[in-house]
């Protein structure tokens, strides 16, 4: 475990100095002034202060994530909001998700600053800003995942009229923000729960350590609200979607049988690939990402409130925060990169990225064009 000794003391001399009490090993929270000491829960004071290398390492990770998030989510927002072919109600949700993810990204420069100070900058206010960003974007992102699952279920199960209108989509987006609000602002205004530093004491989140019913109830509620409900809904919608696809496939096969058809394909190139398996793969990826991003956090919070706290070392509690942030960088890519039109648009606008996608609209014309050039070459 890292300690905070001054650099001029060699490791060998360290035990001696300890004995002679020349150096005091700092515990977490030592560098927070007296008047803000109440910010730090006693649990953290049992751990030695985190070495500056840990801080710098974390700052480095966050810087990289920040760049990834800005480029990924930024390109998604840019392309989805400026391409005409991508302006559909369903894609509004993808933009919404990218906005939430960018908001989570705003946490990252704050952390980098904090890491270099090795403490929270701004104390309570800084803590609140950091945690509001995290909480709003985290819960909002989770519920947007649900809405995307719902929208996909609607479009796929009833291709004729299932598509949501723009108004419905806007209302659903409003709903995602409203869903994220209560557990963001209740702790911020100290109405229920509060935001406190955690882990290295450079990040902030809701309080899951205070040992009273109020906090425990709060942790329980936020666990259900922002983790259990979205997860169940995601599972529900994707499984419904899956069975809808299976039903359609079965009916098509029956119809094909009536006409004595052997091969049944969506297009020449798709022959042999099962739609069910493709769907299951995508659905599982999204579900898996959701689990990856929020299960560690949920685990830490539940342990903090109800379990054996001694395993919650500062490093252990930083892992979930990093997980959530990594997923926020990957999320837009998973949704967007599965989108053929997005890839086509990406190829058009950012050719150096090396995305190769046959434009869904102009497959035939494109091949016609090549045929013409070949012909021209042949003629010449």
């Amino acid at each position, binding site marked *: 475990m890292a300690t905070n000794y001054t650099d001029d003391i060699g490791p060998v001399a360290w035990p001696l100095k300890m004995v002679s009490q020349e150096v005091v090993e700092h515990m977490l929270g030592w560098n927070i002034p007296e008047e803000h000491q109440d910010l730090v829960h006693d649990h953290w004071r049992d751990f030695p202060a985190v070495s500056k290398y840990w801080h710098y390492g974390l700052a480095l990770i966050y810087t990289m994530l920040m760049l990834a998030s800005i480029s990924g989510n930024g390109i998604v927002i840019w392309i989805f909001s400026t391409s005409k072919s991508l302006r*559909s109600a369903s894609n509004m949700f993808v933009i919404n998700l990218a906005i939430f993810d960018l908001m989570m990204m705003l946490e990252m420069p704050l952390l980098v600053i904090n890491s270099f100070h090795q403490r929270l900058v701004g104390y309570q206010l800084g803590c609140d800003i950091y945690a509001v960003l995290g909480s709003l974007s985290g819960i909002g992102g989770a519920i947007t995942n649900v809405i995307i699952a719902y929208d996909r279920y609607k*479009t796929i199960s009833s*291709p004729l*009229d299932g598509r949501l209108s723009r108004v419905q989509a806007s209302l659903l987006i409003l709903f995602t923000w409203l869903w994220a609000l209560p557990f963001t602002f209740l702790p911020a205004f100290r109405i229920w729960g509060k935001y406190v530093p955690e882990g290295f004491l450079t990040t902030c989140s809701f309080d899951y350590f205070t040992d009273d019913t109020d906090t425990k109830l709060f942790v329980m509620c936020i666990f259900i609200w922002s983790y259990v409900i979205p997860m169940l809904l995601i599972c529900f919608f994707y499984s419904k979607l899956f069975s809808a696809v299976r039903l359609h496939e079965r009916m098509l096969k029956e119809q094909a049988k009536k006409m004595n058809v052997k*091969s049944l394909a969506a297009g020449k190139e798709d022959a042999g690939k099962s739609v069910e398996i493709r769907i299951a793969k995508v659905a599982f990826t999204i579900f898996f990402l959701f689990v990856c991003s929020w299960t560690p956090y949920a685990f830490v919070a539940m342990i903090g409130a109800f379990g054996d706290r001694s395993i919650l070392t500062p490093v252990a509690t930083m892992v979930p925060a990093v997980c959530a942030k990594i997923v926020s960088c990957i999320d837009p890519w998973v949704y967007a990169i599965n989108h053929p039109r997005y890839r086509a648009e990406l190829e058009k606008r950012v050719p150096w990225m090396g995305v190769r996608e046959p434009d869904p609209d102009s497959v035939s014309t494109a091949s016609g064009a090549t*045929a*013409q050039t070949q012909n021209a070459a042949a003629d010449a």
Partner: protein
Amino acid sequence: MLDYLSLAFVVAVKVFKKTTPNGKVTVYLGKRDFIDHIDYCDPVDGVVVVDTEYLKGRKVYSQLVTTYRFGREEDEVMGVKFSKEMVIGNEQVVPMVNAKMELTPVQEKLLKKLGPNAFPFTFTFPEMSPSSVTLQPSDEDQGKPMGVDYCVRTYVADNEDDKGHKRSSVTLAIKKLQHAPASRGRRLPSSLVSKGFTFSNGKISLEVTLDKEIYYHGEKLAANIIVSNNSRKSVRNIRCMVVQHVEITMINSQFSRHVASLESREGCPITPGASLSKTFYLVPLARSNKDIRGVALDGHLKEDDVNLASSTMVSEGKCPAEAIGIVVSYSVRVKLNCGTLGGELVTDVPFKLLHPAEGSVERQRFNAMKKMQSIERHRYENSLYTNEEDDNIVFEDFARLRMNEPE
């Protein structure tokens, strides 16, 4: 032989043709619309002309393909495709497999004219195969329209499993349509309903009778309505509409569209004790529904003279629920508005909307009408005539949609 003579005598035979992008294979089809006469269906008969030197031992295959599209292309997410392609006929055309196949008159004529490099092919539609239907897209829909369509695809390949190359393949879109039986029947469809009210005695009764069971496209439909009011409510107004019911069997969903409607207050309110007899005239037309999404049409949109989808007919002994693809039916729906508290009295009378049968008097009239419309639209102006006097074959280039292609 008589048939052949009469053809030559009456008018030039029109033949549609289309060539592969590389110009080596040309497909000729006698027609683009193939009629399902319920008890039998026109075969798809065509001729392939190929440069045999170009083949170098390869073969020419033809396929009859039907494509179902039941969702918009732009809504396809997660790798789901809202379309299915089914190969319902597959034949090796060159070299000929069955040298003794029976030829249709058009094939005979074409083979005679096009010489030794011409090879015939014939497909029969499977008994159950659905009719061509296109669902009208809305303005903002991109991509291919939804519906059921057919095409004949011809390609050059080494063996049957080989899919061939784009440059040596050619696809001709065709339609499979249904025509009315020769006689329209004498039965007049009608419906009689009545409605009582919770808090008052007496009933309002409504009887709707149509003047025919089968209507032809563009024909005026007369619905005779008799309302007798024995209740204490009064009828505020009467709405009469033609409803097109569309069932997409492949995804088990259905919807309906009002393709013609009329609202009347004449003779209204029908007060307690009074009665009304009135005839409503309606003409369901594709033209008047151009901006309604999802209206089912007969075949492709590119043609100006497209009409509403014909009612789906099933052969005798089969139940309508067995029909596949997109099933279309029609009814006249009459709605009486009995005031805010009284609610509505609604009844549906089913009827059929079809093309007149081949050879009937109506058919000739229908064709004449259609031809006039076509002339107005200069439909044939751009078409390619290579009219040769000796045997009267007119070749119309099938690829009207393909843009200027180098030779």
